[in-house]
Every structure is written in C-alpha cells, then in structure tokens.
C-alpha cells in the first residue's frame, strides 16, 4: 500500500512507514486495522503503510525490512503491542537493513486500546490517534548512536560472607581480578558461626572453610579485611572507589600464629564471634580457620598502643610482627563492576521488652545457640545454660521474634527461622534426648527441598510444636517463665523453662544505609537493598554495573545466597568481558545555553548521573549513568534538561494531536 506520489516530510525530511499489526484477533477484532493503515497514509511524512497478521513473526519482520529498503524509509511506526515486548525486535530488524534503530516507534494499540475497549468504532478511532501521536513523534526523532565506554576488567565485592565469597571465587575463576573488601578482621560472615546447616546437618565450618581457604590462595583475588568502602563515583566499567583499610597492628607476613601475644594480653572481653558467650583477648583471632590467618589488635579494647601503658604483646612477639605505628591506609582503586553482599544483622531483641532479652541471661538468640551447639564453641558443643552452666531440662524456642509483626516491628517473614529452629530443636534432641523441647510458632513456613520433611523429623523426635506467640517471658527465681496461648486449642499456657532461644528477624546489616548512600543503590521500606526488577533482574540494582546479592536484598538461606552470589558473579563477568560497553542513547542532556546553574536537579537523580561543572556553572549529565527516567527534566524549571527523542517540542506536538478533536 505505498503512497508513491507522496513526498517525505518537508520540515524534517522524514520518510515514515506505518505498520499495523493484527496480532491475530488480539488487535484486529476490536480495531479496524485496514482503516487504521489507510488513514495513516495521509499523515505528514508517511510514505508507506501496511497491515500484517503477525508483525513480530519472521515473515512480518521480513515484510518490514523489505518495505524499509524499497520505500527508502528512514523512520517507522509499528502499531502493535506494548514496547516492553517487541520494541527491541523491530529495532534490530530495522537496524539490520541499515536504518537507525532509534527511529523506530511503537504505537501500543493492543494493551492500551484493543484489549481494554468494547466498541470497535471508537477503538479504531483511538488506535488511529495513537498512531498519529507516534508519527508526530517520529517526525522529530533524531538518529542516535549508543554511547560507548572502555571497561576496567576488575570487580569489587563488598562483604565477604558466603555470598561475597562465592561471587569472588566465580569472578576470579573466570579470569578477572577481584578485590574483596570485608569490614571485620576475617571473612566468612555469619555462616562461619553456625554449628551445622539445615536440612543435611553437615558442619558449617567444614563446607565453608575450603572456600575461605580458596579465597586466601586465589591469585586473582585481592583480599582486604578490616576495611570499608568509603566512596564510589564513576559509572559502569569505570567505578572509582576509595577503600579505607584500618590498621590491625600485626604484620601478616611476619606473624607466625604462635599465640604468644594472646597469652600475655591482660584484657578480656566477650567474643563477638561467640555471640558474647565466650571470652577473647584484645589481641585475637576470631576463630582458628579465620582468613587471613593473622591476629588483630582490637584498638577499642586495648589498653592503649603505647609502650608506656602496656606493650606486653609487642614484647612477647618473637618475630616482631606487632607494629603500634600502623596507620589507616586509604586506597583509591578502579573497578568495572561492583557486587554488594553486605549481608544481614539480627533484629535488636532488646526492643521487645516483654521478652527480657539482655536482662535475663538465659534468654538467648539463635546465633548464640548455634555457638552453644558448635563443637568449637564456648562450651565445646555441650548445651549449657549461660546463668549457671547447668544442662537445661526444658528449652523453649520462640519463632517470629520481631518479624511478621507490622504493628510493632518488621512486617516481613524472615524466611529461615522456621527451618533453623527445627534444626536447633533436632540437634538438641540428638545431644540430650531427655530435654523437653518446645517450639512456639505462628505458622510453619519451611519451603525448600527437604525442609518440610526436616521439620517433621524434629516433631517425630519429640519436639513439641505449639501454635502461638508468647505474650511475656520473665524470670522467676531459677526459671524463665513463658506465658502464651495455644491458638489451636485455645488454652492458656505457662511454661517453666531453663533456657529460651529466640529467633529474631533478619534485618539489613548495620552498614547497608551508608553503602546505599555511597553507591546510590536504593533501599526498600525495611532498609534492604532494592533490586532493579523483583523477578527478572533479581541481582541487579537500578545503577548499571552495580549488583547486589544475598541477604543484603532480603532474608535468605545459604543455598539461595550462594546462588545469588553466583548470579551476581555471572552478571559481573558479562560486563567485564565486553570489549566495550554500550549504553542506550535515550538519555537526558543539558542545554548549556539555558542551564542557569540553580542545582535543583543535582540531588534528584536516582542514578547519580548529574554532576555540576563549577567552571561553566552548569549541570552535566553523564550519558553512561543516565537511564532516561526524566526526573531531572520535570524538575528543571528553565527547561534546560532535555530527554533525547522525547523533547518538550515532541511532547507538545503529541499532546496537540491527541487532544485535536476536543479542541475543535
């Protein structure tokens, strides 16, 4: 259906083709596609129109390419389904025959027209109007080329728990250099603290330590512990990162791990690794398998790194590995991509005053119980209650502590607590079969391979599951009393326990907020990092090149965290292995002649793409970082910010066409 005699648009020299798709009956039933194609013929700049059954099919695309070639089209409008579905299809089809792909416009006449209307005549009218607005836009579209940028082939991973470790190993194995930054003196994260893992009950340390050791020995991995990332700038392929490495006052190259310094250190404090249940010295190694295998001087608890105050450890150190003059090192490095794996913390249970956590020493949390179960723990794997070191006869587990409680605490389900409480109960029953074990739960949520069966195993072993949430836990002499109601039977319960183990909600780790501010990766309502798309981009953030994995995103168990670590690694590798990075050119730009430098746009960009040029006193948009969301455009009162191929002029013309009938 060529309109041969017709000239291209006088003003913009456009030769536009309009392709109306039937989409089987999806569009054709409610929209007169033939009429829509016929009417479009008279629009400015349109030199070719047609309608075809399935434009996205191979023959449909061939037809489109043929038309571009024979009618010398330099812009096309495809009236079909939503651009989220086939925009890329038609863009690449057009690009393959030499047309600029950014001259392809989609007029969505399916989701926004045929599917939502019941009057064929009016729907046709609307479809034509949608096509008209897109033709109007196409007239002013400009051919664009994607911006390209070189890639720095290194990856930064923040956080060395199991997720970060897995990601680091995967990226390093693919042949790329990795820098792994961990805030604490050792890698391993929470997994290193666990006694065993559900549902197979294999020893957590045993499956983790080979990976930790691999990190220590992998030539591609540069491990920086006792360090923090303090600033991130730049963009995908070229992140500039500042890392602050705090002094550990022990030279890892000289230290022979003889333990002499620990013996002489006069300061004893509760060990973080043991959940505060065991002691450590001010100079210490968190646990024997720690990586890097070196002692660390905890400056907050040390009497003072001054020979006049105390220098026992330095004096005791044979190889002279202890150096009190070590200072904080600032490292400025560049990376191609960044993986955030900052993990989780446990909800502060002392906020739940009715549970007396912190005031009653026999009320402990899950991590502390893991340490009690662990053969390398403070009790060498014998469960003793903290108050009098006696074997508890009655142990009560409480689930959903601080989670699934939207009125007071966290609204979400912490996901792993049902299964790990089951694990605790089961292990306890194995260790001391005579112990009376109660589990208070709201619902059992044990989705995952073998998890439900695992809970059943615990129940078969004699663990008593009671559906109900304790209303009050308090100390009464030698015992801790739990008041609860069994919501299945309606009875009121009072349990006298020797030990109470709470399963607190997993919350974002303490540093999540500061990392979010540094990287501009946004957070959700609970403070977890937010993925770019919950289903289709689970480990990507809105900032391109910035990946997030593991419990930094939401509560997860170990297999999921490992899977996400690998997923993020794969995404990082796909960035690092590109010869060059290309970025969609549909971004905003600053008209320097109009920008007055009011700085209103500066802080609004969710991608951190806008900076200020102090010399010219204008804003500058980084094309690689900009995702074309338009936030800055609507904030610019001087109209100096322009979205490419969606300019104010184009918007105005489109609105004009869309409201044409009403204006008459």
């Amino acid at each position, binding site marked *: 259906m060529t309109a041969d005699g017709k000239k291209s648009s006088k003003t913009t020299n456009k030769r536009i083709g309009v392709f109306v798709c039937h989409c089987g009956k999806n569009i054709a039933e409610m929209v007169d596609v033939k009429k829509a194609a016929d009417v479009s013929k008279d629009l400015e700049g349109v030199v070719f129109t047609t309608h075809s059954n399935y434009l996205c099919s191979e023959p449909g695309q061939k037809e489109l390419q043929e038309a571009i070639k024979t009618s010398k089209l330099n812009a096309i409008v495809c009236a079909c389904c939503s651009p989220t579905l086939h925009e890329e299809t038609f863009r690449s089809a057009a690009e393959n025959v030499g047309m600029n792909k950014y001259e392809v416009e989609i007029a969505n006449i399916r989701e926004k027209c045929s599917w939502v209307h019941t009057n064929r005549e009016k729907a046709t009218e609307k479809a034509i109007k949608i096509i008209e607005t897109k033709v109007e836009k196409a007239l002013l579209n400009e051919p664009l080329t994607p911006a390209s940028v070189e890639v720095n082939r290194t990856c930064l991973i923040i956080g060395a728990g199991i997720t970060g470790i897995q990601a680091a190993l995967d990226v390093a194995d693919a042949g790329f250099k990795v820098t792994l930054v961990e805030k604490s003196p050792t890698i391993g994260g929470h997994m290193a603290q666990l006694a065993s893992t559900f549902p197979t009950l294999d020893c957590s340390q045993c499956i983790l330590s080979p990976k930790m050791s691999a990190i220590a020995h992998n030539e591609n991995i540069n491990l920086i512990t006792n360090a923090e990332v303090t600033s991130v700038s730049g963009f995908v392929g070229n992140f500039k990162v500042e890392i602050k490495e705090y002094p550990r006052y022990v030279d890892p190259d000289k230290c022979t791990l003889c333990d002499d310094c620990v013996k002489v250190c006069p300061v004893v404090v509760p060990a973080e690794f043991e959940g505060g249940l065991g002691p450590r010295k001010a100079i210490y190694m968190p646990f024997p398998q720690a990586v890097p295998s070196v002692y660390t001087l905890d400056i907050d608890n040390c009497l003072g790194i001054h020979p006049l105050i105390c220098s026992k450890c330095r004096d005791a150190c044979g190889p002279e590995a202890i150096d009190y003059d070590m200072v904080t090192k600032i490292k400025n490095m560049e990376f191609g991509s960044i993986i955030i794996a900052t993990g989780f913390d446990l909800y502060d249970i002392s906020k739940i005053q009715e549970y007396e956590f912190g005031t009653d020493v026999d009320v402990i949390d899950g991590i502390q119980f893991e340490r009690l179960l662990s053969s390398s723990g403070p009790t060498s794997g014998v469960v003793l209650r903290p108050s009098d070191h006696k074997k508890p006869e009655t142990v009560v587990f409480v689930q959903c502590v601080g989670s699934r409680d939207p009125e007071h605490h966290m609204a979400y389900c912490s996901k792993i607590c049902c299964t790990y409480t089951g694990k605790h109960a089961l292990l306890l029953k194995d260790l001391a079969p005579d112990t009376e074990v109660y589990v208070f739960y709201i619902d059992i949520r044990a989705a995952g391979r073998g998890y439900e069966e695992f809970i059943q195993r615990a129940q078969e072993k004699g663990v008593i599951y009671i559906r109900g949430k304790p209303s009050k836990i308090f100390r009464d002499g030698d015992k801790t009393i739990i008041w609860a109601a069994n919501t299945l039977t309606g009875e009121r319960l009072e349990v006298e326990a020797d030990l109470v183990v709470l399963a607190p909600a997993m919350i974002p780790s303490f540093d999540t907020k500061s990392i979010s501010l540094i990287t501009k990766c946004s957070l959700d*309502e609970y403070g977890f990092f937010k993925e770019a798309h919950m289903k289709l981009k689970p480990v990507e953030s809105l900032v391109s090149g910035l990946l997030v994995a593991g419990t930094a995103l939401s509560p997860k168990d170990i297999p999921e965290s490992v899977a996400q670590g690998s997923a993020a690694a794969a995404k990082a590798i796909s960035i690092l292995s590109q010869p060059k990075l290309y970025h969609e050119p549909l971004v905003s730009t600053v008209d320097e*002649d*109009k*920008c*007055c*430098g*009011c*700085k*209103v746009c*500066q*802080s*609004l960009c969710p991608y951190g793409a806008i900076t*200020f040029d102090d010399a010219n*006193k204008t804003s500058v948009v980084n094309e690689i970082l900009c995702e074309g969301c338009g*936030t800055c455009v*609507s*904030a*610019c*009162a*001087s*109209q*100096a910010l322009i979205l490419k191929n969606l300019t104010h002029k184009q918007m105005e013309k489109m609105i004009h066409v869309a409201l044409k009938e009403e204006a008459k």
Partner: protein
Amino acid sequence: MTKIKLAVAAGSYCGGCDMSIIDLNELLIPIDEVIELQYWQLAADFKIKDVKALKDNEIDITLYHGPIRTSEHAELAHLFRKKSKVLIAYGACSCFGGIPQLANPFTASELLDETYVHGYNMDDSGPNHMRTSSEYKKGRKMTLPKLLDSCLPLSSEVDVDYYVPGCPPVRDQWLVLIDIITNFIKNGELPPKGTVVAGDKARCEECGREKPDEIVINKFLRPYEINPDPEKCLLAQGLICMGPATRAGCGNQCTGDANMPCRGCFGPAPEVDEPGLKMLSAIASIAGAKKEGELGEEGLKKLMDQVVDPFGTFYRFAVPQILMHIKQKKAKEEKSDSVK
C-alpha cells in the same frame, strides 16, 4: 540627526512603568536628543484624536504599558499598532499580563459584584449604584469602557515586535533600548522580531548566592517567617524563589540586597512557555525529596499544602497558557455571538 517619533501608551497599569522611564534621570538627556514625543500622557497633554490624525506607521516606536483589561485598552492597542512601525510591550503586565492578570479566574461581573456589591463598605442600595454611563450634557452620554472578562497581555490583541519585561523594567534594559534606537536611526536596522530585552538564561545565573548540592524543601516558609541567610540559596532555605523559571536581567534586585525571593516579574526563562507549571513541577520535585517513602502520599500532600496561594505564587506575573486559551476562545465566541 533625524529624530525618531516615540509614543508611550498604556493599558491597565499602575504607573510604575512610567516612573521607570522618569527614573532614568540623566539618561533622559541623550534620549531626548534623538526622539520626538508623539504621545505620552505623563509628559504632556496629548490627545488621542491627535494620534488618530497621524498617518499609518508614522510613529517609529511605541512603548505600551499594562495589559488589556477594558475595551478601551484594546482600542488603544489597535490604534497604536496601526500608527507605529515598532510596537514594544513594556513592563511585565504588557508582556505577560502582570499582577492584574491574577483576576483572570473570575469573570467581569464577578469582579464588579465583589467590589461594588459585596464590598464590605458598600451600602445596601444594591447594584443600582453601579453606573457605567451617565448623561452630562443634554443628550450627550458618556459611557465607561467595558470591563472585559479577561486580562491578557498586549500580544493577545495585536502583533508585538519586542518585549521589555520587568515590574518595572530596569536601567540596564534601557541601555539596550537606547542602542536599538540609535542603531535604528543611524542604520535603520532592527533586532529580530520577538526579541526580549533582558538576559538570555534563567535568573539563578546572576544570583550570587551559594547553592548547595542538595536542594530539598522539607518545610515551606513565607518571607515573613524567616530572616534568610543572605549568602545561601533561598530555595534551599525553604522559600519559594521563582529564580529557576524566570528570565535573568533584573540586576539581582530582590535576591540581592533586598534578601527576598524572586517573584518572577521578568517572565518565563527563554523558551519556557509555562513558567508557573515548570516551577510547580520543580518545587514538587524537591519537596520532601528522598523522603517520599517515609512521608507517604498523605505526608507529601500535607507538605505541598504548606504552599499558600499556588496560583498567586507560581503565576503571579504570567497568564497560564490554558487560561489564555480559554479566555481567548470565550472572547471569540462572544464576538461572533454579537455579530449574529
């Protein structure tokens, strides 16, 4: 040297624009040397009939103050357009509608009722005391010009060549105007039509205040509620300053020594059609920015409700485009109705 013929005419104006010319002081001397006044009621007793007697295009340049508020203003606009080679909209009112255009949301009868019937100091004699015409000699009737339903800029009525914005315009603009006039006399050359005699960027460019990297408003303040830091951006201090949407060229009077936010009298920044809408959009963007989740829809609404008189704040000097369309459409309909 030949002198050019200048006229100064006015619509609904306050007199400030005339004063801005008088205020030029010693600059008036060189101006006086090159011009020959044809009409300026402030300066001498010119009569309209004298202007009517002139040939078409006989006046070289006419400065027109004030918007078109009454039928007389419209007549004057047409008369001076016909008699002048160059017609310049002088002052914010003439350029964009100015303060008088704030009455646009109301019709003429609503305005008259508000003032002359429901006004608090009106007696109970009802609308009868409103007299728009009276007989002053036997058989001779005098009629007041009709109050129009709209109050629109000069360009809504006639073709305008140049714009000199400001409430009122400032001395710096006159320096440019004098250049234009002398160049016209010497070479007969004029700048391109539609030229705005003012800056070519938005106001913030000439404002010396320090602008922080993060401009966010969490509480809106009105000028009387705060003694602003004279060194810091006023928007960042919670005041609605029209700077980003307003054309530069005023010489930083309000935001400078006066320490007051820009009200927008220089009209839209270059190529901005809707300064009010753009500024509203900018304010909405920075109000509670990054706290949207925390504030929620309700909180954001409460925050935006702190903006007192949005129409008077964002559209203080320029008629909104949509209102202009509506008013012009109505006027057209009325005209065609009266023809029928």
